């Protein structure tokens, strides 16, 4: 491929401002001395100018308004979900704190704090473990149920 052919390959990219400064200079220098490439470059410029001047279609105002309303609704829903997540994390932390705090209280009521230091697996420990497990399983089931219901409502909306 000679220089002329190489430059011809670059002409289209020149009108798209897609050449490096060095390539652009090469094209311009060649086009000044080559009538064929100069004419070819002009025709590419005509095409590029036409593309730049194509009319801009506009969305109907009703569609823009609908897009705004739907986006705002989604944005509000997202904010609500974020708030729900924060509340959920807060509630879980509170529940854990309450659970842990309730252990010494229960021990205090049922036989003294020192009993907690007893490493043996006794009835009090077992009872308390069952009690905690039931509470947490109920809480987990409620959370799953609420989340499924929310998802169904969102799908229907």
């Amino acid at each position, binding site marked *: 491929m000679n220089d002329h052919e190489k430059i011809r*390959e670059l002409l*289209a*990219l020149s*009108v*798209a401002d*897609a050449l490096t400064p060095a390539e652009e200079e090469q094209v311009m220098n060649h086009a000044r001395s080559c009538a064929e490439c100069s004419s*070819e470059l002009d*025709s*590419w410029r*005509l*095409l*590029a100018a*036409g*593309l*730049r*001047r*194509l*009319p*801009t*279609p*506009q*969305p*109907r105002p009703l*569609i*823009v308004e*609908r*897009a*705004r309303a*739907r*986006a*705002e609704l*989604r*944005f509000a829903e*997202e*904010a609500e979900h974020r708030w729900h997540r924060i509340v959920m994390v807060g509630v879980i932390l509170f529940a854990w704190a309450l659970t842990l705090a309730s252990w010494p209280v229960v021990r205090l009521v049922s036989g003294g704090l020192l009993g907690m230091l007893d490493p043996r697996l006794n009835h009090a420990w077992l009872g308390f473990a069952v009690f905690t497990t039931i509470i947490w399983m109920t809480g987990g089931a409620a959370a799953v149920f609420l989340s499924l219901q929310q998802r169904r409502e969102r799908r229907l909306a």
Partner: protein
Amino acid sequence: MIGSAAIHWEGRVGLDSELAQLRRGDLDALSALLARYQNRLYRYLLRLVRDPSEAEDLFQQTWVRVAEKIRQFDTKRNFEAWLFTVARNIAFDHLRRIRPESLDEPIAGAPGESAATRLPSSERPVLDGIVERERTSRLAQALELLPVTHREVLTLRFEEEMKLEEIAEVIDIPLSTVKTRLRRALDRMRQTLEAHYPGEVWQ
């Protein structure tokens, strides 16, 4: 030159402030963003799918997705490229689902009335004359006959006036591929014009 740089800087500052407001939950900022990009985004979607009603639907979906994802947007990134990427993903998912063949092939047949030229007459820009108007119309029709990847790169470069780096970011391809695609798209555009309107000054 200084004037246009100042306008660009003002636009950039305005955009940054709208994005910051939106991320803080200000819905007025969403309206401002929508007003800023509505025409460009709709034009891009219309160029991709060619059907105004589909473009309108995708336009709405894009803004819903923006509302969903705006908090995950990295402010160090270019918002415009991000926005067009969101729109592109939605449009290509739609094309893959509805008209998978359109992702590979141009539509067949002679150009008819194009969506790009179906504009309310009052909103058409005043062109220099009948010849110019005719030429513009034929260009729009020829553009619609190109494959979607070529239409896309031409509209991003010549209508949206995006830099090559921005186009690479939107389409998610290397810069060298953008150049190759751009050149092929221009070649194809000229071939299409020559095939449908022989003898006219396209060359």
